[in-house]
């Protein structure tokens, strides 16, 4: 942890600005494949399943998330459409992390890591569009 943090920008109010707690009922779709994605989520409570081709015969479960896991980051990073859908079977509580917050985290990160994240994101997009 590095110092030089404390200022008005780091007040609890300011920190909350980039975060949003959201409740989704059972059977709700959090985001759908193909939507423009600007927000990532951290699963606080409940269940979330990531599907590809959700609602189609080609539907395929990518992963089932547990509390404390983040999802939706890919679209945020690449600034593109959602590549998968997020669905809650029994309902869930999520902490939405805005793009600005994530960008700030990236900006605070080591330049090497920042480059690496950007590179991987682009490579994933490239591969998925091929």
């Amino acid at each position: 942890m590095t110092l030089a943090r404390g200022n008005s920008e780091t007040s609890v109010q300011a920190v909350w600005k980039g975060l949003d707690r959201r409740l989704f009922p059972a059977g709700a779709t959090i985001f759908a494949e193909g939507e423009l994605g600007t927000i990532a989520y951290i699963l606080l409570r409940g269940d979330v399943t990531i599907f590809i081709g959700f609602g189609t015969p080609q539907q395929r479960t990518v992963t089932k998330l547990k509390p404390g896991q983040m999802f939706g980051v890919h679209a945020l990073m690449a600034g593109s459409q959602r590549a998968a859908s997020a669905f809650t079977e029994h309902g869930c509580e999520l902490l939405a992390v805005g793009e600005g917050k994530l960008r700030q985290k990236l900006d605070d990160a080591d330049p090497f890591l920042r480059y690496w994240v950007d590179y991987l994101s682009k490579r994933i997009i490239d591969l998925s569009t091929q």
Partner: protein
Amino acid sequence: MHTAPTRGQRLSLFVTVLSLFLFGALLVGTGVTVTNYVHTRQTAARVASDTFDTTIDRINERRLAFFAPVFLIAELLRNDPSFHQSAGPKEAIRPLIVSALTLSPQISAVYAGYDNGNYFQILSISEAEKPFLARLGGPPSARFAIQEIRADNDGVRIETWKFLDSDHRQIGTLSDDRPTYDPRRRDWYREASAKPQNIARPPPYIFATTSQAGMTIARAFAGGAIGVDVTLDRLMAYVRSVRSNEKHRFVAFDDQNRLLAHFDLDQMFKPPRPGDVRSTELATTADLTDPVAREAVQLFTRRGPYRMADLDVGGTDYLATVVRQVARDGGVFFVLYAAPLSDFQGTLADAAARSLPAALLIFVLTLPAIVYLAHSISKPLARLSSEAELIRSFQLDDPIKMESRVREINTLIRSMSGMKSTIREVSKFVPKALVKDILESESLVAVGGKTRRISILFTDVKDFTPIAAGIPAERLMVNLSEYFEDLASLIIKENGTVDKFIGDAIFAFWNAPLPVERHEHAACATALKCRLALLRLNARWMEKGLPPWHTRFGVHVGEAVLGNVGSSDRIDYTAIGDTVNIAARLEALNNYYGTGILVSGQIVDVCSNQFLFRRIDRSQPKGAAKPLDVFELLGAVDGPEEYGVTPAMAKLVRDWNAVYDMYASQDWLRTLDALEAFASEHPEDVVAGIYLERVVEFLLEPPPENWNGIMHFSSKR
């Protein structure tokens, strides 16, 4: 540390100076008295010597006058042919002799003895001779008696007496045909006959006729000798009369120590032997009974004649002289004269009694001047002494304003004034408490240190570098001085030691070099007061259009090495050790937590009863050996309004403790709930923001199960 040995009660300077003056005055008075006495004594000795000379001269003159008619009549009769004839008539010479006897009462008899045993005498009848006259059977009114012893043609010696009255008329006769008196067997006759060229002067003796002390002057002529009897009582009476008083002693004695004169005529002859009514043996100096005369003679025996000598007889001082005299006939004799010294000079006590009242009067008259002088010396010195005590107690503000009429004291005043201002100025460069300690303890400054528990305060101005870049350097120095003056004076007022100014930072501590009770509390209170002072300073500056400064404080307590660091020429008194570093790190952590005053858990352990703290974190700053419980100092419990605990502060701590308890349980989801609730009440709280971010991170990547809650920092600032 050097400590002066304890001594008895010291006298004040005024008393000492006054005593010295008094002692000096007394000494001078005594000295003058003694000198006067000694001088008087010397004068007395001279006066006594002159008096003795005069007296002896007068006695000599009287002696000469006394004996002049004696010698004259002796010489006249010796040259008178009619007197040489043993059987011739003496009528022609008789008037001369009678006149001489009349005019010279000291001559009691004039007579002549002849080879054939004849004898002629004219006796002056005075009161002393009356008994003799009565025994002889002469008329009581006789003034002169003429005795003649003559042998007739048959060789029968006949003695006849004729008596004359005062008019020289014969008033009676007596005769005796068997006289026993024979002049040729008398000492005077034999001595005169033995030395016919000289006057015979046998020593005094008791006259057979009158039992009076006297002496005979005898002179031989062809066929006989002349004798003149002189009674000494008149001479002795005169000798006594020339004495000033009865205490004066006069003794004359010849070269065989036989007395020729004595102030007490009774002492002229030896004491009578048992059975004798009266002694007729002449006394010598060995027979002297008067102690003064004996002492004077003993001195004469040891060293011969002396002009003047001091004698101590029975505790009384006497002056004495023994001088050599030559008689008319060439004989040598000595005159002793002695008198009490007190006749010429009073005693020392008398002198003191005479001098002391005058000395006392002078002293009393000069006492105001003495007191003034003692004051003029002691008063400035007493004030200087007070000034020295003020310097020792480090009260250096007021300059020394005083003067003395004494030049050396004035120099001392100037020197001390210079020293005071120098210490005042120099003490600005070093901790005042240190200078005070050195002044009070008189200890020597040497390199070295000792471990002590101290409370440390570090201050730093937030973003000072851009502030400094934004204003002219001169203005910056003025602002910085004003800032340091306000804060440093507060620290010193709270018994803190300002170790040094480091740029815009202040490093201060408590409990060294002087012990400070409850120094942890003092450090906390000072931090709060500094915060308040800074608010006021900023208010002033903002009125002038100057940007405000925000100062961060770090307070810690612990063991540190206190002492002198440097070379023998340049020494800094400072504190070093991990405790100092931690205080500095605490100050720096304010930047991270957005806080103003961060203190360590060690401070909170001691001071939580009097100050309100908010738990901030468990941190391990870079370089710190151990993790640190970090708290924020908010205010003083029951403190003044300016920096006392407010209800808002109390609520903040209560609300935050709820969050922190959840955080400590490491239930991050519920901590998030708690932070959300806290944020609604305290939206501007930076610490909660930090924790919110931290909790979000923990949601994504929880710390290890054995995590102890310590946050590690990778940089110092």
